[in-house]
């Protein structure tokens, strides 16, 4: 157990920081309505050149084969830069899920394409918008002489509006839940973009007899759901680490504001009540880091199901501590904190979107209780 970075990790960090600085500079946010489908194919390609899209892809499939520590490092830097690229979806969840899937041409070709930055896969698991139940799946597969077609609707597909493929859960003709890859450009796929809380574009994805890639499910019978949960655990780990980057930037913006803004003839950072609210934010940030690292340690073995309890503890805590940080940041910024045009706004909205992605505090507290 060691918390400081070794030389390789410092080099990776430096590379990603340079990439983020060159790509995003001082990104300022927009009002939600003005936001374009924010992520960019060219940036994604640049990320693939740096190895980021294949960060978790096994080396034999063209990736770097890294694990939790690198997920932490990269995600945090992307968070600090408010990167809108679909890292957690396409580079983590999709890669982890494909890696775990049954050997075959789909697995290997998709993993290679992820590494190369040629595809962006969006996990499409949810049908209800009221809870995060992965088992409430009505989407179904029809088998027409060995050709598989998918029918159903998935909601709140994160990063879905700009995806090239979906990974969709659906029931086989035998009624069993499995996962399938479906390209976005085949007949029978209808993508309706939905504006997300963070200005990124979600999608409703409708499948009306769309052809399944490779005409095969990703998993052996009965193995899909556990693997979906496990891949989402890694996705949530990435989101938690991204949240650390967001919080770090919010602390910076707030501390600067406290130092610069003057009222009653002195910087407002000299007022004890504001100092103490800032201290609460610092504590929340430190606790978020601790619990995220704890989850990473628990997930490190990669064993199916390992770390679920700690990951859920971490995600629920990051949601809760995140509120402390973002609410404190807004309050300490006063009117500026409520302004969509000020940089803070984008961080606030992204942190809330992370909270709502793949299980919120309520969901993960319950999952923690059940898993521990």
């Amino acid at each position, binding site marked *: 157990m060691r918390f400081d970075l070794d030389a390789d990790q410092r080099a990776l960090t430096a590379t990603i920081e340079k990439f983020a600085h060159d790509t995003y500079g001082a990104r300022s946010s927009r009002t939600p309505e003005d936001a374009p489908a924010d992520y960019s194919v060219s940036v994604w390609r640049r990320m693939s050149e740096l190895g980021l899209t294949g960060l978790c892809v096994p080396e034999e499939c063209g990736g770097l084969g890294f694990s939790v520590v690198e997920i932490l490092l990269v995600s945090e830097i992307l968070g600090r830069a408010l990167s809108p690229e679909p890292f957690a979806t396409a580079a983590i969840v999709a890669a982890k899920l494909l890696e775990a899937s049954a050997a075959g041409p789909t697995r290997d070709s998709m993993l290679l394409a992820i590494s190369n930055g040629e595809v962006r896969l969006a996990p499409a698991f949810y049908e209800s918008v*009221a809870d995060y139940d992965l088992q409430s799946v009505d989407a179904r597969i029809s088998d027409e002489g060995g050709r598989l077609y998918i029918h159903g609707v998935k909601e709140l597909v994160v990063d879905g509006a700009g995806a090239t493929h979906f990974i969709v859960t659906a029931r086989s003709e035998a009624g069993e839940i499995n996962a399938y890859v479906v390209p976005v450009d085949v007949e029978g796929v209808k993508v309706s973009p939905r504006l997300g809380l963070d200005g990124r574009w979600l999608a409703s994805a409708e499948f009306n007899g769309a052809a399944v890639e490779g005409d095969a499910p990703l998993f052996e019978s009965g193995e899909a759901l556990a693997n979906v949960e496990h891949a989402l655990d890694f996705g949530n780990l990435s989101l938690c680490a991204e949240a650390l980057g967001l919080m770090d930037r919010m602390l910076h913006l707030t501390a600067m504001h406290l130092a610069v803004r003057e009222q009653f003839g002195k910087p407002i950072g000299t007022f004890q009540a504001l100092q103490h609210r800032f201290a609460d934010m610092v504590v929340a940030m430190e606790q978020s880091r601790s619990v995220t690292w704890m989850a990473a340690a628990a997930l490190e073995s990669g064993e199916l199901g390992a770390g679920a309890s700690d990951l859920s503890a971490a995600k629920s805590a990051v949601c809760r501590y995140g509120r402390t940080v973002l609410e404190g940041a807004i309050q300490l910024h006063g009117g500026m904190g409520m302004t969509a045009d000020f940089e803070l706004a984008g961080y606030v909205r992204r942190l809330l979107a992370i909270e709502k992605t793949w299980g919120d505090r309520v969901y993960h507290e319950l999952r923690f209780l059940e898993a521990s």
Partner: protein
Amino acid sequence: MELGWSTSDLEFREMIRAEISALVPADIRTRVENIQHLKKEDYQRWQTILAERNWATPAWPPEYGGPGWSPLRRIFFEEACFLAGAPRPIPHINMIGPVLQAFGTEAQKERFLPGIPSLTEWWCQGYSEPSSGSDLASLRTAAVRDGDHYIVNGQKTWTSWAHWADYMFCLVRTSDAGRPQEGITFLLIDMSTPGVTVRPIYSLDGAHDLNDVFLQDVRVPVENVVLRENEGWTVAKYLLNAERTEIAGLGQTKRLLQYAERLAAGQRRDGVTLADHPEFRSRLARIRIDLKAHEWTVMRVMAAGHGDASAPSASVLKICGTDLLERTSDLLMDLGGPAALAYDPAVHLGRANGAAPYGHALNGTAATYLEFRKAGIIGGTTEIQKTLIYKDAAARWGTS
């Protein structure tokens, strides 16, 4: 001390509920209950309906056209409006109105009071400036006398509804002598005067309520001074007191709670309605209870009248209201579940018609959470209010 309500009060309550319920236009009611933002015309339409019955300005004294209701009846009236899905009263009615009544010249009263009840003339408040927020007395927008006009230069900011407003009541600096409070004048500015520029400020939820107001060589007739030059601080302090029940946010809190309860009753999660969900049940109960407490605190303040030191202060009302708005909007964010991830601002903010992808109710959850982060900032920050409470409290409890 007497805690009961008279029969005639209870009859009034029945009457006003029935009347108001019949008056609210259906389209407005729908938007209000969907927690969508209203248009200027919605507010005007509703105030016009009320004005026809002389109910548009319930807190104004009868000599200025108020209905002459007791505090309790005003509470019943507000309750009836709330239950019927009426728009909330525009705060400025109880700000600039009472100020003109207390300090205005006869000419000012004649000119400005008639346009207020039906909102035929819309007002905004020009207090905050980029460098003057909590420290209001440090404001720098300057008015220099030039014959029978002032020439005003400066900038106001966080000005609600300036883009809808015909007039702005504002504080300007007319002297640098003495304490900062001593050189301030309360001035009425016609927003169509050359040199007035309004620039929108978009809020966290995407709404356009707030504005920057730039004032460049704006000529304002001297008869638009309220009270006297350099005595604007007196007016501002009076106004703070006049708006203390507005600042309590009781109606807004009730509306948010109603919204939360409707959502909780209608949505299911983990196999139960959200209202029965262990996560939400007791949070809802505590908010309902604290709202009852708050309502009684408001009644105590209304009944006490000015100058009663044992009554809760405006700052206590503001803190309680802020606490409830923050907690209820926080609860809404949680009630929204996964659907709070999507937000269609156009529909929510009234810029487009039609339904949101997952329905109006879910569409408003995150937006409402974002909107009410303002609660502890506007109208005097929570920090400022607590400091004021301490000062009062030290005087009341801190002496042997």
